[in-house]
């Protein structure tokens, strides 16, 4: 409540109690209002209203407010009389009487209670008055006693004063004498120390005496001592320096040595220099021994190599198939120590002694100097910069050695070795980083690791590529060797033995599956090897580079994606570089590669990339090559290869047909008795191509055959059309007439693109090949002139082709059309066009 308003007089606090107590008895309903009012009135009574000003102000002006300070009874009565009825006045009166009564009783209670309190307060005050009187007496007594004690004490000290002065003087003399004795004994002591090689003791002794000697050096005796000491100390310093220079002593001795020399005011810069030189020469030895390992074996040891060669690292690593063993079998240039051993030695010898040097150096020149008086001379800074230069220089040489060694690590098989080596290398450098916080050494170390990793990825890519090319060569050989190469399982064994039926003849599907399986295996093993770089237990794997860029750019892009691109590209090259003769690449290989690329497009690429992404958990920050782009590329390659296959096969058959047309004298040929051998050959070859394609590609859709495809006759050309053409007399006025029929025919048949793109199925491929062959036939026929029997021979040949070729193509009308054209053209080019009877043709063809 307002209690914080009145706490100045103690009594007001007391007065507060009663109304509260009284409140408790009053009905709770009008509690707050009434309490306030009572309070207000009491306050008014005691003249304490200044606190409650804010509360009272609004009511204060109203003279009719019975509780307000400006209450005017006269005014109030008048107002009541004017405004109220008699009954109301009566009520008002009773109410007022009741209020007055209750106020009276409140007043009485308050007065009574306060009276009691006054009484007890008076009692207490009286009692206190008595007690104070007693205390005053005792205090007087105490002060009298104290005065007596002071008096005594003064008397005692007066008597003892003389003796005390004497004792003090004596003890002073004693100390001085001891000091003098120390000074006089100092040379001897120093000598003894020197003898015992207790250098530190000597130095500390000398240090203690040095100042005094310096101060009293004008006195001859002291001067003598000082000179003696100097001589001895010089000798000592000499000895220390000698020891320092010898370098035979341990690091601890050395540091002790330096410490002493520092205390002897030897210039710190020189010492730093010397110390570092000294340490440097020892580290140099380490480096040299490392360097010796890098190229120890020019020709001489290389010859020994084959006999003394330790088991190849690839065996221990166990990175899988024969393919890698083949690549790793290339003698690695430094055969004496493997890289792990090398790095181990580097770490143990060079890096650890470097760390030792750094610690002791820092101990000596940086930390120690900071505490001593040398700190003022900026020695820590100087020493630090010297150390940095020193470490940087040595580390640079060490790094160049390591890098050289890493570069020699060409074999791809032993990746875990390299990773472990790099890990160790990196880990040890962390120690240096801790010791020398500002140094660029760890940074450079990280860069080396990164370079090594990227280099390694490149090597893997190259290895994959060469593996791929080797596999292709193997496939080529397998294709070249005759089918029944039961005695040559070697071809199969190149593919990691993944094919179970390696004894079986290497048929196309098997070759394909083994090829793609071995490539996939190879990719997987390479991924596994590369994965070592990001293994959890490798220190550098949590560097941001290895978490992000390495996974994404290094592995995914420049390894996996590059390899897939390489496959596509090399496939495409087969189409281009093989020359237009198509001689160098066996067609079967083209077909096989085309299928391979198509398989890549449908499944393998996404599989490989998913695998990669899973293994390397790459978050691709930079845009990466999309699967779809790669698939498109693969598909394009597949298409190109297949087109090229069609072209090559078509050209082979074309060549046969062309030779057969060009080399014959068609005017003077004899009556046909059988189908020319070349046509049989064409059909045979087409059949075998069909089988070959069927091994790798699905059948595909073809248009429905007419029921008697093979029986179809060339009625159009043999009678009606030919007649129309030749019957037309020479009519220059109607140029279009003669060609009308043939033109109408062409109008309704679609234009045939001869060397067009084919679809990925057998029928389409075969259609392409046959189209090319027959078009060649047609063009060749048009360049020749035929006699009667020449024409008939062509009729027979075409019928024969008709009988066999329709089954290979998607739309047999195509074959019909082209053969029609051939026979039509040869009839046109015939001097004596007398077609053969269809029945005869059939008989001849049946006969074969």
């Amino acid at each position: 409540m307002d209690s914080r308003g009145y706490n100045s007089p103690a009594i007001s606090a007391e007065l507060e109690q009663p109304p509260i107590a009284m409140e408790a008895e009053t009905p709770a309903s009008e509690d707050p209002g009434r309490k306030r009012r009572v309070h207000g009135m009491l306050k008014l009574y005691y003249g304490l209203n200044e606190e409650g000003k804010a509360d009272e102000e609004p009511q204060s002006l109203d003279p009719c407010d019975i509780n307000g300070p400006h209450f005017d009874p006269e005014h109030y009565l008048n107002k009541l009389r004017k405004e109220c009825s008699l009954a109301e006045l009566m009520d008002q009166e009773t109410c007022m009487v009741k209020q007055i009564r209750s106020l009276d009783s409140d007043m009485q209670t308050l007065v009574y209670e306060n009276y009691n309190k006054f009484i007890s307060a008076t009692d207490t005050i009286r009692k206190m008055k008595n007690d104070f009187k007693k205390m005053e007496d005792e205090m007087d007594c105490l002060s009298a006693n104290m005065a007596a004690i002071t008096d005594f004490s003064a008397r005692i000290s007066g008597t003892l004063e003389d003796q005390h002065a004497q004792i003090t003087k004596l003890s002073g003399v004693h100390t001085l004498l001891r000091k003098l004795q120390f000074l006089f004994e100092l040379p001897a002591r120093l000598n003894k120390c020197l003898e015992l090689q207790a250098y530190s003791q000597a130095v500390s002794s000398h240090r203690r005496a040095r100042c005094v000697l310096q101060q009293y050096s004008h006195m001859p005796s002291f001067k003598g001592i000082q000179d003696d000491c100097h001589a001895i100390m010089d000798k000592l310093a000499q000895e220390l320096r000698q020891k320092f220079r010898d370098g035979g002593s341990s690091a601890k001795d050395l540091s002790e040595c330096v410490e002493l020399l520092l205390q002897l005011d030897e210039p710190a810069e020189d010492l730093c220099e010397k110390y570092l030189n000294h340490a440097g020469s020892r580290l140099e030895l380490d480096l040299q021994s490392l360097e010796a390992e890098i190229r120890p074996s020019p020709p001489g040891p290389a010859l020994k190599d084959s006999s003394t060669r330790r088991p190849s690292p690839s065996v221990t690593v166990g990175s899988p198939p024969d393919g890698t063993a083949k690549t790793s079998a290339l003698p690695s240039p430094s055969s004496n120590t493997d890289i792990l051993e090398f790095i181990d030695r580097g770490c143990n010898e060079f890096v650890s002694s470097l760390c030792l040097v750094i610690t002791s150096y820092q101990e000596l020149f940086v930390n120690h100097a900071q505490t001593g008086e040398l700190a003022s001379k900026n020695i820590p800074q100087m020493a630090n910069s010297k150390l940095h230069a020193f470490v940087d220089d040595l580390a640079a040489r060490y790094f160049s050695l390591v890098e050289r060694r890493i570069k020699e690590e060409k074999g791809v098989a032993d990746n875990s070795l390299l990773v472990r080596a790099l890990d160790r290398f990196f880990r040890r450098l962390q120690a240096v980083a801790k010791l020398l916080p500002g140094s660029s050494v760890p940074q450079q170390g990280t860069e080396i690791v990164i370079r090594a990793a990227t280099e390694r990825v490149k090597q893997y890519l190259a290895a994959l590529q060469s593996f791929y090319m080797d596999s292709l060569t193997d496939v080529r050989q397998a294709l070249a060797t005759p089918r029944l190469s039961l005695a040559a399982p070697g071809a199969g064994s190149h593919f990691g033995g993944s094919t179970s039926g390696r004894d079986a003849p290497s048929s196309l599907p098997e070759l394909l599956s083994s090829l793609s399986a071995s490539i996939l295996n190879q990719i997987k093993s390479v991924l596994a090897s590369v994965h070592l770089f990001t293994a959890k237990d490798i220190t550098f794997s949590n560097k941001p580079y290895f978490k992000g860029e390495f996974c994404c750019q290094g592995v995914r892009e420049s390894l996996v994606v590059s390899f897939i691109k390489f496959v596509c590209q090399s496939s495409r090259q087969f189409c281009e570089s093989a020359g237009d003769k198509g001689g160098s690449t066996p067609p079967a290989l083209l077909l096989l590669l085309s299928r391979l690329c198509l398989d890549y497009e449908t499944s393998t690429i996404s599989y490989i990339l998913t695998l990669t992404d899973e293994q390397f958990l790459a978050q691709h920050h930079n845009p990466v090559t999309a699967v779809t782009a790669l698939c498109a590329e693969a598909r394009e390659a597949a298409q190109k290869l297949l087109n090229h296959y069609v072209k090559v096969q078509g050209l082979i058959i074309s060549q046969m047909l062309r030779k057969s047309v060009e080399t014959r004298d068609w005017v003077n040929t004899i009556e046909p008795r059988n189908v020319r051998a070349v046509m049989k050959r064409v059909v045979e070859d087409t059949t075998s191509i069909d089988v070959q394609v069927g091994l790798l590609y699905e059948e595909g859709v073809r248009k429905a055959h007419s029921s008697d495809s093979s029986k179809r006759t060339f009625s159009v050309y043999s009678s009606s059309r030919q007649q129309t053409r030749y019957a037309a007399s020479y009519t220059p006025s109607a140029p279009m007439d003669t060609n009308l029929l043939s033109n109408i025919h062409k109008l309704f048949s679609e234009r045939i693109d001869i060397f067009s793109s084919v679809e990925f199925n057998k029928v389409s491929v075969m259609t392409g090949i046959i189209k090319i062959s027959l078009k060649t036939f047609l063009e060749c026929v048009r360049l020749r002139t035929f006699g009667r029997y020449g024409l008939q021979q062509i009729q027979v040949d075409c019928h024969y082709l008709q009988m066999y070729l329709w089954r290979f193509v998607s739309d047999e009308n195509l074959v019909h059309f082209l053969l029609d054209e051939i026979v039509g053209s040869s009839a046109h080019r015939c001097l004596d066009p007398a077609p053969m009877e269809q029945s005869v043709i059939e008989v001849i063809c049946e006969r074969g």
Partner: protein
Amino acid sequence: MEDDAPVIYGLEFQARSLTAQTAETDAIRFLVGTQSLKFDNQIHIIDFDDENNIINKNVLLHQAGEIWNIGASPADKEVLTTCYNKTSDSRVVSCAAVWRMPTNWETGSHESPDDSAHNPQTLELLCHLDDSAHGNAACVLWEPMGDGKRVISLADNHVLLWDLQESSTQATISSTAMLEGKGQLKFTSGKWSPHHNCSQLATASDTAIRGWDLRTMNQIYCIDNAHGQLVRDLDFNPNRQYYLASCGDDCKVKFWDVRNIQEPIKTLEEHSHWVWSVRYNHSHDQLVLTASSDSRLILSNMVSISSEPFGHLVDDEDLSDGEDNHQEDKCKEPLKDSVVSTYEEHEDSVYAAEWSSADPWLFASLSYDGRLVINRVPRTLKYQILL
């Protein structure tokens, strides 16, 4: 000139041979030789009326045999050569001859163009270019821009250089060269270079292209395996003396710099079957016309290897026509090689295509079924080249 639509003309016979009348620089005129074994063969003289888009034709009889190759004299409008097949006693022999057109062929046909009863006139034989010792003639080449006195005929594996005397009525062999090698070598085609004072010849045989020096009659270069298959035709760039275009059965058109014959400088693979003919435009050598047995004719704009790789930089030296094409020189961005247009008006293999000698923006193509199509360079391209 306003209409870009092609004009088509049909012959009654099959035909392979087409040439522009080289000496004619005013009228647009082409000569077509037919192939028929049964009827008298003809030479159609096709006049194109550019203004009205109308074709006028005249027919001359060529009774000696079916025509495989035709060439017009660069000096005399009325003189031409043909290579033709003659059948006698069940033997087919290829011959070559120089002919003169009758002087009044033009007036004769104009009177009654539709009169089929009209008897066409016959060519007048000037002389044979035959030498029985040298085998079958494949083609005859006139000396480009010459005075019509020198021709070369290619017969089997011989190059024969003829001098025509006494107004072409007499031909004597002035020098010969022979292609030697394994197997039966035969020239398929050839081209007399207009450069180097007309002292060079390029020939095609099998897959190789050979260059010859006509002064010594020695081979000067040989592009082996220029095409994967047979080389069908050649043409020299009229403005760049070392540049040569070739085409063949591998569906490709290749452009060569004969100073470096290891690799073609450019290869086009637009056709889907053998390419039978390749022709540079006489004035604007970026325009190259190719005809193929896929029944298509393709006009390509080979700017990058033309004499005007940055567009029209210098004034045209109009080699074939007197038209003034002087335009202000303008530097342009290097333009890209592209296929300008593919013409699909033919239904059969197109064996020949020729630029007109009178109008550099006009060309004719001939397919086996006897259809002759006259087309123009698209106007946008024309203006692009000119401006």
